[in-house]
């Protein structure tokens, strides 16, 4: 595999990991707000129990993502940095408010409600803006005057394709996070919360799928090159849909391992992640070799080859060292019954 392709795979890996972690993170923040008056089911507590220790780690991935872009594709950084000044700044402002008020809401229980509302609402807007980076890279909202690229915000925010992406990001955040929290509730033996999140998953799954179809429909008119290349990979799109049906099985069928329990939440989380992974692979592959269509490709934006090798080695060494840390973290907060069952 040529170096530039390895590099874009690493970058796309970060995009995907962050996308999954962030949807769960922002979604959980929203549910924590949504069920705040629903004390009996403890749905809010479950969301907070997941969120409190994980948000910092999730946040680190967005920095990792930007750093990967800078060090692997410096020229793309130049173009993206220039055109994303306004949307990027808005994301940063919302992210700052969201993270800070999330921490504040946990520090003072007396003001938990207003503070949670601030972090919940700002948080659920963020994925909608983050995903806008994708339609922006499709190229037709970018104008090139006197050698400098500028983003046409009016064109962006009057495009149905953009809104399909925004809707997809928000519904996916709620969908994936409700699946995760259903699983988390079940492991914590909070069956009331489990029922709540299972129901949310049943509602949001079809909505997310509908949004995905809307993306494809609008893409056909706005970025036909991308649409056609995605359709070339039809078999994989069917595989993705197959995983979605598997999520449905996990949501509706009785659990064969636990008597009287409907739903297999662990299966839904894994199948949904696989569904998004396959779909994002098809999207990413169709997008190649362009980072920003049509001027910036992975080859034109690629870093110095020697720098790439050095950076790639630090990735391998770094994550080899970090892996036990991640595992220990996971076992303390996702597995340990003493944490999960704390009242």
């Amino acid at each position: 595999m040529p170096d530039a392709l390895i590099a874009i795979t690493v970058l796309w890996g970060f995009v995907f990991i962050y996308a999954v972690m962030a949807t769960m993170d922002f979604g959980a923040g929203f549910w924590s707000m949504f069920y705040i008056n629903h004390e009996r089911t403890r749905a809010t507590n479950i969301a907070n129990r997941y969120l409190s220790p994980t948000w910092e780690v999730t946040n680190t991935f967005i920095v990792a993502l930007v750093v990967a872009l800078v060090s692997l594709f410096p020229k793309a950084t130049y173009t993206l940095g220039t055109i994303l000044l306004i949307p990027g700044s808005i994301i940063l402002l919302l992210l700052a408010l969201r993270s800070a008020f999330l921490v504040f809401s946990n520090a003072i229980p007396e003001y938990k409600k207003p503070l949670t509302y601030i972090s919940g609402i700002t948080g659920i807007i963020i994925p909608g803006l983050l995903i806008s980076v994708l339609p922006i890279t499709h190229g037709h909202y970018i104008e090139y005057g006197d050698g400098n690229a500028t983003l046409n915000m009016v064109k962006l925010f009057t495009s149905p394709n953009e809104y399909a992406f925004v809707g997809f990001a928000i519904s996916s955040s709620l969908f994936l996070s409700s699946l995760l929290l259903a699983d988390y509730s079940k492991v914590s033996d909070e069956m009331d919360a489990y029922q709540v999140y299972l129901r949310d998953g049943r509602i949001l799954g079809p909505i997310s799928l509908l949004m995905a179809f809307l993306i494809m429909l609008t893409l056909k008119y706005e970025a036909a090159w991308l649409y056609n290349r995605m359709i070339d990979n039809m078999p994989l799109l069917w595989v993705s849909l197959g995983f979605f049906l598997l999520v449905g099985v996990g949501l509706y069928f009785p659990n064969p391992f636990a008597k009287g329990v409907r739903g297999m939440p662990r299966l839904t989380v894994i199948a949904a992640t696989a569904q998004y992974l396959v779909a994002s692979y098809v999207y990413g592959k169709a997008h190649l070799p362009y980072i920003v269509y049509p001027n910036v490709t992975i080859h034109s934006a690629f870093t110095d080859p020697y720098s790439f090798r050095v950076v790639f080695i630090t990735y391998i060494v770094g994550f080899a060292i970090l892996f036990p840390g991640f595992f220990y973290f996971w076992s303390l907060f996702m597995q340990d019954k003493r944490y999960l069952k704390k009242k």
Partner: protein
Amino acid sequence: MDDILIARSLFGTTMAFHIIFATIGVGLPLMILTAELLYQRTKDQDYVVMAKRWTKTFAVLLGVGIPTGTIAGVQLSLLWPGFMEVIGRVMPLPFQIEIYAFFVEALFMSIYVYAAERIPPWLRIVSLVLVALGALASAVLITNVHAFQGTPAGFRYEDGKFLDINPWAAFFNPSFYVSAWHVGVSAYVVGAFVVASVASFKMLKNSFGSRIYLFHQKALTLGLTVGCIFAFLTAISGHTSAQYLHRYQPEKLAAAEGLFETQSHAPLAIGGFTDRETEEVKWAIEIPWALSFLADNSFDTVVKGLHDFPEEEWPPLFIHTLFNGMVAIGSLLILIPLLVLGWKRILKRRHNPKWLLWILVSTGPLSVLAIEFGWIFACTGRQPWVIYRILTTAEAATTSKGMGTLFILFSGVYFILAAAVVFVLLYYFRKNSEVDDLKRAERKNGELYSTNT
């Protein structure tokens, strides 16, 4: 204002706000670790209560430090795309490795806070050490990018092209060690004096000899001891940094000292303001020959003056005042703890008088101010360059327009965050007083740390 100035103001505001939280975020873990170790040695519960309360403070401050750090990191690419393009090609390693440091800090911070009661004491210490190391490494690595901007290395620059790129040579650029060392130890100064400040304020508010007074007296002693040691180390490393300027960025040293004529036996101007018209430092105290000696350990050393450089490459002249402000505060922070020590040991007074406590209250804010002075001096002193003699700030800036609104928006959000974080800390610690925590610690049923989560 032109676009470059707005972009600089925006980024400068972000950094000025972020470094308060970042610096305390590096300094405080060392204090927590010291308190934890003292507790494990002495079994004095006051220390575990200190560790607990500082950990809470740290966690709340991280709530601002992490998002503002994210802003700073992303804003680099948004506001200075030309700069990051070069950094991505030549100097990617510090950011790259900083990510791992950041991960280590985030993972073990969560473990220390949310699993404190479930893990054995030795693992708590290990987690805390990793948090402290992660924070320190982040600071050192980010500082390394700044070091590279002043003393770029690891490439050959010809006709606007970067050739023979060697990222590790760029990483170990000449001023890496000096800058990293100076920033690292100065962060510990801030952590220690912030603790000392709060402790002395509480001593003022509580009657002499009361339980709370004694609790804070211990914290004060701890803060002053750590603070004095690191203030001394900061002074030494600062001196080395200045000697590096003499060697690598002479016009920055000339502007910092307000020196216009190149000369041996150069005088040192302390204080005052540099006047561009008369080319002198007004209201300064001059010490003959001292600058030459400080620059390279000999009175014969020829120190370059600003006239050796074209005027459009002069750094702004106000950095002399910032530089002196930083040095003055640094010196005070060595002297004040010694004053307290003298008061106790030589004059044998047990009671700290009010005036002395008020001086001690000022040390925390002063130390933060010194950090601000230092960074503004270091970064504006490099102007007009973003990478010394390679890339100008103007060339690196974004071509986008309309940054005035962004500047207002970001400043507004920083203001909200600053107000909220102060409110949250005050509110939390009013609800969970020292007495509450001391009682919780005595009950030993694991209640102490759970009030942090």
